[in-house]
């Protein structure tokens, strides 16, 4: 199996889907002549021309809405947000148009499209460029949300998202674009709504998504040295959500934490805690804890930023607490 970067895996997914289906086009800031701010669309302009790989003005609301309009009449747009921080400018069109068109038209207009780009913090980008907004999108019925953490999942989920008949928000990770991993060639589809057990363990479940998968695996390595076998469940898809996989893991380990980059209040972890206590209460031997970003805007100073972000130590500590080992 060839080893690709996360960036190359996304590029391969776009290229394959655009070759397969003429209705698929890519639109966003810097996606064409500049090859994408993070080079995800490298080479696609030469391959497909400027009607299918389209540089836009810096008008997130406008080009997101334009793409929803194109999807209403049967095209399958892929909108790239340079980062999901900027997607907030387009939220009106995602929330009011894409998410609701099918419902308020009584089933007449579905919106087969993708909104994609990086979510979460990178390094010292400060308050406006470091947000993880997964829960904003997962909150609204009508939208589907995926967050791949590995190159193979990035390719497989983006391909499935492009083929899905509903609006799918694909949240990538800025610090993931350079990571390498094995990626199946050609027709590699990861279905929406299917979690992936990235590590098996009997003692505690670390449930997470996106970039945090790697932090969870590091924490599991540390815990192993203490004699604790942690299970790492990567949700991959936040809506639809693989509740069965979550419950199966909790039933096995009886202890769980949720790890995410976003803020705690009404975050993805809050939903997971609710679901676990509603549906697996009797299997729990400890409260479900969460490791999240500190409940503050992201600071710039390196030391403060490190304090604000989830880290291995905090994940290990949370696992110890649900194991009553501290």
């Amino acid at each position, binding site marked *: 199996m060839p080893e690709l970067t996360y960036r190359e895996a996304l590029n391969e997914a776009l290229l394959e889907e655009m070759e397969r289906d003429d209705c698929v086009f890519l639109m966003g800031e810097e996606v064409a002549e500049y090859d994408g701010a993070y080079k995800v669309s490298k080479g696609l302009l030469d391959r497909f021309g400027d009607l299918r790989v389209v540089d836009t003005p810096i008008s997130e609301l406008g080009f997101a809405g334009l793409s929803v309009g194109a999807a*209403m*009449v049967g095209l399958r747009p892929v909108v790239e947000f340079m980062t999901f921080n900027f997607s907030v400018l387009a939220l009106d*069109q995602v929330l009011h148009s894409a998410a609701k068109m099918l419902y308020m*038209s*009584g*089933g007449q207009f579905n919106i087969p499209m993708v909104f994609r780009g990086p979510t979460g913090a990178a390094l010292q980008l400060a308050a406006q460029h470091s947000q993880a907004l997964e829960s904003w999108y997962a909150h609204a019925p009508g939208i589907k949300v995926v967050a791949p953490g590995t190159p193979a999942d990035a390719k497989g989920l983006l391909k499935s998202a492009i083929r899905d008949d*509903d609006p799918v928000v694909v949240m990538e990770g800025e610090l993931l674009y350079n990571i390498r991993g094995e990626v199946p060639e050609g027709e590699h589809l990861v279905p929406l709504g299917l979690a992936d057990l990235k590590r098996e363990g009997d003692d505690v479940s670390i449930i997470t998504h996106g970039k945090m998968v790697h932090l969870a695996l590091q924490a599991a390595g540390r815990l192993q040295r203490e004699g604790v076998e942690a299970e790492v469940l990567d949700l991959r898809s936040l809506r639809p959500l693989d509740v069965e996989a979550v419950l199966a893991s909790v039933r096995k380990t009886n202890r769980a934490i949720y790890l995410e980059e976003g803020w705690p209040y009404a975050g993805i972890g809050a939903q997971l805690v609710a679901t676990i206590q509603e549906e697996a209460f009797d299997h729990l031997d400890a409260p479900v804890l969460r490791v999240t970003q500190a409940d503050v805007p992201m600071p710039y100073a390196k030391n403060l930023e490190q304090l604000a972000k989830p880290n291995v130590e905090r994940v290990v500590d949370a696992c110890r607490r649900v194991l009553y080992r501290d």
Partner: protein
Amino acid sequence: MESGMAQANMSGIPEHQNDPFDDPLKGFSEEELLGFLRQMLLFRRFEEKAEEGYAIGKIGGFCHLHIGQEGSAAGCIGPLRPDDYLVTAYREHTQALAKGVGPKQVMAELYGRASGSSSGKGGSMHIFGVDQAFMGGHGIVGGQVPLATGMGWAIKYRGEDRVAMCFMGEAAVNQGAFHESLNMAAIWQLPVIFVVENNEYGMGTAFRRVSATKVEERSAAYHIPASVVNGQEVLETFRHFEELVKEVREGGGPRFVEVRTYRFRGHSMSDPVSGTYRSKNEVSEQTEKNDPIKILRDRLFEADVLSQEALEVMDQEVRALVSEAAEFADAAPLPDPSELYTNVYSQINEHGRLFFDGRDR
């Protein structure tokens, strides 16, 4: 008046369409003239019936009537082909009718019934008609403008000869979505006609109080040719749009039109007709002198195309149609409770949970 006025004007400085020396009826057959009158009368009676339905509690929520603006619905939409896209805001009942959605289906939607154009899920603000290329009533001011631009994009993408027409009220030209859309329509030369129905008031705020420049100047920054037409003169409006649609269909790029009109009712059924923002006198003067139906009626009387008796017959006919629509709506079933969860997603994925309120457990 011969049209063709808009295409030479690439500066974006608008041209006005009034030419007092021309015979407004010229070029229309009697059948066409009576057709316009009948259509506007249907729109008026339909909205009056909706008003009645609202008053007796059959219609709920927000309900924005188009009374006074019928000339715009008939004149702008008339020249469109059935497969041309029409996208609009929430004052859209008559626009849906003009595009071919049936009065029964629109009324049943207002009544929140399963037989409604959106199966009762949309209501007054969200009428859709996929078969009529009526692409919706949208409820966020200006939100429909990018959508129309996207339909224009799809037309260009597929190399079709359709056009996309986008209605908005004048207040929408102060939204960012409007400006972003006009810019993109201009750089990509998309086949979109942006139609601003200027009824002077965004809810209770006069346009001039909140706008640094006039409506007609708003496309100049994007070099989209602009024009102004009197929407209370349906024939003039129709002729103008006939020409515009032709130009855009032939690849002329986007167009921008201010249609001057006036709303005879409050912003919505829950708002007053007049009050602090406009006087009773202003409204009654407009209703008296600037009613698109009366203006055409009087012209047809003068030209002997219409008699008082014929008008009464016509009015009885459209009243019967509208009553039929209301009876149909009233007799139509409510949506089945099982419909609560349909149409949220068009594809229920094989794996995972999509709903989090206990339904899937």
